[in-house]
Structures are given as structure tokens and as C-alpha cells.
């Protein structure tokens, strides 16, 4: 039998296209994505949407309950909670996303390198990581911000540095397990170099725990930013941020619960969206989680 050249070879999709086809089928993930996009748009266009200036103090209107004028009420300085939420989103969302990005860029390569090379490299990198992990995370962040200056960019950097070791350790653990898989040996036997093995085989198979961990990092970052602001390191008053506003609102929990509900609701919505999005991404990236096809054996009847 000679190998016949097929007249016109049908195109076929690779893993990325196949995964992209899967993602929209995950309903919760789509809801999460839409919510997150809406939140981001609201923050980005805050000046156009916000009915009031978020920092303008108006003591005559302080602690007003929600009304048509003030959708989410006013705070103890008479500032509109809704407007502060919109502007606060700019701080909180960018902190969350950038910290996630920092943690990813620092932690994942570190973990992959440690797990792939093993031996002395692994020992060195992991001792470094352990050293970082021995500090209470907030204290470490405070120290870093103290060192760099109480600027919001520095807060993001500090939080990223704090979260990276956690991610690195987790990635290393998963990498060590995947490294022993037969398909990694098979790739080496084909002549694949370290770059291809790490990216195509190791990273691709540890991506699920990474995605899950990053959603946790995001939530932690938003809350940590609040704590830092509270300690006077992050956002400086009167600039709004969800975390700051939430912690301030605690003092008025009995008198003005709406002050608390606004930022808390925003943080919760945001974290939930991210979680759903993470679930969807994880499933879309794992073909074994797809439930759209019958097995081949069943089909070939």
C-alpha cells in the first residue's frame, strides 16, 4: 500500500483552539467573565458614571441611608458611597490584577525551574522561598512598602512579592509530580529541549492548580491592600478603595450598615466572578473535564 497524498488536507484545530471552543460552554465562567468585565468598565469610566465627587466632604449630608439621590447612601463625611465604589474599584481591581500578574511572573518560573532542574537549584530556590514564607505576609509587605515608600505601585509590588513564594512552592510540587510522567520521558526521547518540555508538557499540566491559586491570590490582594491602607501604607485618605472603605465602615456598622454593604458587596462579587472564571478556565484547559463527546469506541459503531 503506497501512502496516498490526500487531495485536500482538512484543517484541524490545535489544543488552544479546542480549549477556546470549550470555554463559552461553561455557564458559570461566562457569568463570571461578564461580571468582571462590567466591574472593570465601571471603574474605568467612573468619572462619567459617578454622580458625585468621591472625595468632596459634605458634612450636612453625612450617614444618609440609600435613596434615589444617593443610591448606596453616604458615609460619615457625607460622601456618596456609590461614587466612592466606582472610583475605589480603580484602586482595588488594579491592585488585585497586578498582584496576580506579579505573583505569576515571579512565582511560576521559579517553581517550574525548581521542579524541573531539581537537585541543587531546587534546594537553593526553595530555601529562599522558605525564608520568605517564615515572615508573616502582612509584616513582610509593610517592611517592603516601608523600604520603597508608601506608594500604591509599591504596595502592589510588595503584595506580589509576598504571594509569589506561595505560588512558587505549589508549582514546584506539581511540577515534581508531572516530571515523572511517561509523556515527559517520551518528549525527551523525541528530542525535545528543556524549553519545550517545560512549556508544552510541565506548565500545561500544572496550569489547573495555578489558576485556582491565582484566584485566591486575587482575593487576598484586595483584602491585604485594605489592611495596608488601614495601617497607612496603601491608598492615602481621602482616596477611595474598597478595602479601605470597608474597614472604615466597621465603625459605623450599627448606624450606617450601607456604608459596609457597598464595598463588601463589591469585593464579594469580584472574588466570586474571579472564582467562576478560574473554574471555567481550569475546565476548558483540561480536556478530560469536557463532557461534550461520546467515547470514540462508542462512536465508531
Amino acid at each position, binding site marked *: 500500500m503506497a501512502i496516498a497524498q490526500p487531495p485536500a488536507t482538512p484543517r484541524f484545530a490545535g489544543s488552544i483552539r479546542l480549549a477556546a471552543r470549550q470555554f463559552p460552554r461553561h455557564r458559570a465562567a461566562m457569568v463570571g467573565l461578564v461580571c468582571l468585565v462590567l466591574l472593570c468598565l465601571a471603574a474605568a469610566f467612573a468619572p462619567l458614571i459617578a454622580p458625585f465627587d468621591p472625595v468632596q466632604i459634605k458634612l450636612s449630608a453625612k450617614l444618609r441611608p440609600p435613596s434615589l439621590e444617593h443610591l448606596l447612601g453616604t458615609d460619615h463625611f457625607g460622601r456618596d458611597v456609590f461614587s466612592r465604589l466606582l472610583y475605589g474599584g480603580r484602586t482595588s481591581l488594579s491592585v488585585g490584577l497586578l498582584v496576580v500578574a506579579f505573583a505569576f511572573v515571579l512565582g511560576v518560573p521559579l517553581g517550574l525551574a525548581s521542579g524541573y532542574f531539581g537537585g541543587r537549584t531546587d534546594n537553593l530556590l526553595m530555601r529562599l522561598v522558605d525564608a520568605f514564607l517564615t515572615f508573616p505576609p502582612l509584616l513582610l509587605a509593610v517592611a517592603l512598602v516601608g523600604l520603597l515608600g508608601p506608594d500604591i505601585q509599591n504596595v502592589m509590588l510588595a503584595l506580589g512579592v509576598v504571594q509569589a513564594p506561595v505560588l512558587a512552592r505549589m508549582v514546584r510540587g506539581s511540577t515534581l509530580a508531572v516530571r515523572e510522567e511517561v509523556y515527559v520521558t517520551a518528549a525527551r526521547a523525541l528530542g525535545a529541549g528543556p524549553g519545550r518540555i517545560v512549556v508544552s508538557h510541565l506548565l500545561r499540566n500544572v496550569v489547573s492548580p495555578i489558576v485556582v491559586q491565582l484566584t485566591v491570590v486575587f482575593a487576598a490582594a484586595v483584602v491585604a491592600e485594605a489592611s495596608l491602607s488601614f495601617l497607612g501604607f496603601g491608598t492615602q485618605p481621602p482616596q477611595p478603595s474598597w478595602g479601605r472603605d470597608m474597614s472604615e465602615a466597621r465603625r459605623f456598622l450599627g448606624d450606617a450598615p450601607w456604608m459596609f454593604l457597598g464595598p463588601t458587596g463589591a469585593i464579594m462579587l469580584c472574588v466570586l466572578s474571579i472564582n467562576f472564571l478560574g473554574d471555567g478556565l481550569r475546565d476548558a484547559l483540561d480536556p478530560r473535564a469536557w*463532557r461534550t463527546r*461520546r*467515547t470514540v*469506541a*462508542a462512536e*465508531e*459503531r
Partner: protein
Amino acid sequence: MPLLAVRNLRTRFATDRGTVRAVDGVSFDLAEGEVLGLVGESGSGKSVTALSIMRLVPEPPGRVTADSMSFDGTDLLRLTEAQAREVRGASMAMVFQDPMRSLNPVLSIGRQLVEVLQRHQKLGRQAARRRAIELLEMVGIPLADKRLAAYPHQFSGGMRQRVMIAIALSCNPRLLIADEATTALDVTIQAQIVDLVKRLTRERGTSVIWISHDLGVVANLCDRVNVMYAGRIVESAPIRDLFQRPSHGYTLGLLGSTPRIDGPALRRLSPIDGLPPNLIDPLPLCPFLPRCRVSVAACRERAPDRRDLGHEHWATCFAELGPRAP
């Protein structure tokens, strides 16, 4: 009266893709002291048949029905879960393929064996210990009294399988079901285990259901063979008849696929083409038809009935296959 009589056994599993008919109308008898081979490939329903007899199919998602399934006079299907456990402990036992996973890795071999004896045989600690040593010696473990303190990981695969057989035999079962019990073992160790099972049936009259995909082991050990395909028995024969006169297209295919160490060296095997069928929407015809090399016109019209070939040999196949050329 046979020790075990199964009539029209059906075991189904509910899955989100539909109902899987894992066992689809299986009937057979097993006499006292007989060694019955259950041969077929993965997915043929041979393991599920055994689990159904042992009442070990989880219900749900499984559902086991039969016209009757009597073991030593009792209908197994009518037993409550507690009674079924009693029967399993006292007169039926099963050995699985993977002896490592069937043993608890953190308990010593002795402890696991003694516990079974204390629970089911109601023996005291010392008596149970003595009996445990006896059993280990019987299955060919040297220095049995010293080995009681050993842990499963300290034993080789063959040794662990011997321990599993010892545990299975601890209650003097009348029926021993071995599910691919030697598949994971090396051939020299397999020969030891097969030898052991032969000795047990000879000396103790234990009936055995030997589940295997290896026709060689079956030829060596069994008195009778049921060949299973797609949840059904497609051919049943005394051991010599099956090999001299395979009468189902699938049996023929299996024999053609099996490389042999004896006889002239063939250049080519004749495999069975294609894949096993799905068990969700079976064809109304012979399930083997899409892969069969000896099908006749009738195969495409209706499902074959059981055809009697004499000497307790039958097959559900339309093709008239003569004796096999040597």
C-alpha cells in the same frame, strides 16, 4: 445438583450516557470441584459476572437481575446485605488482579489474616495465629511463622498473591473466584500459582471460576470454558472441545490472535479487526458481527440462537465451523 446455577443474569449500570448492559443474559452451571474458565477481553462482562455472583456490584448505579442465581440451594439475589456478607465470608471468596491494592499497606500480613479468621471462623487469637501459619504454608510461603510480621511491601507480587489466596481460603470456601489473578505476575510465578490452584481443587474439591484473557492458562487449568463477548456467553464447551472445534467467530478470532510458543513459527497473526462494541445500544444482531471474519448471510438478518453441538458444547453462531486445522 450444581453448586452454582445462574440463569439469565443481567447487570446494568446507569451512566449519564445511557444504560450500560455490562452483563446481558448470562446462564451457566458450575459443578462441585469444577474449574470453569471465563474468557473474554476487557469490557466483555466477565469481571462484572463474578462481582454479581459475589453480590459486590454497587447498587446503584448498578442493577443486578436474574431469573435465578442459586448457590448451594440458596438464591443469592434474595439475600440481604448482611446475609450476603455472611456467604462471602463463609463459602465464597474472590482473588483480584492487583494483590497490592487488595492488601492494607499499613497492617502486617499476619494481622490481616488473623483478623479475617477471628471474624469469620470465630477463632481465638492463638488458634487464629496457628491457622494463619498453616494457611501460609499451604499456599507455599516458606518460613510462614516469621513472615506473619511482614508488611505487604516487603513481599513480591507473587507472594502477595499467595497471601490473597490464603486469605480467600481461610474460610474453606466452596467457591473461589479468581479475577485475572495471575495477569500481573511473571510467567514463572504464574506457573507456581496455577500449580497451587490445581492442587487446591484436587485436594479440597474447591470449585473455581477462573477469569482470564489468557487462553493458554485456561487450557492448562480449566475443565470447561465460557467465552464471553459484549456481556454474553457466546460459546461454552468442555476444554478440549473448545480448542479442537471452536464454533464461534469470536473464539476463532481469539485463537488466531494468540501467538504461540510451540508449533511452527507463523509469520503473521490473524487479529480481530476493529474495536469491541459499545454496550449502551447493542445491535439486535450478533454483537460480534462487525468484526467477524466468518459471518454468513443469516448473521445480517437475525440474532443467532444457542446451537447445540453435542458433548455439552454450544455456541451462538450461524457459521458452520468444522474442526480446527492443527
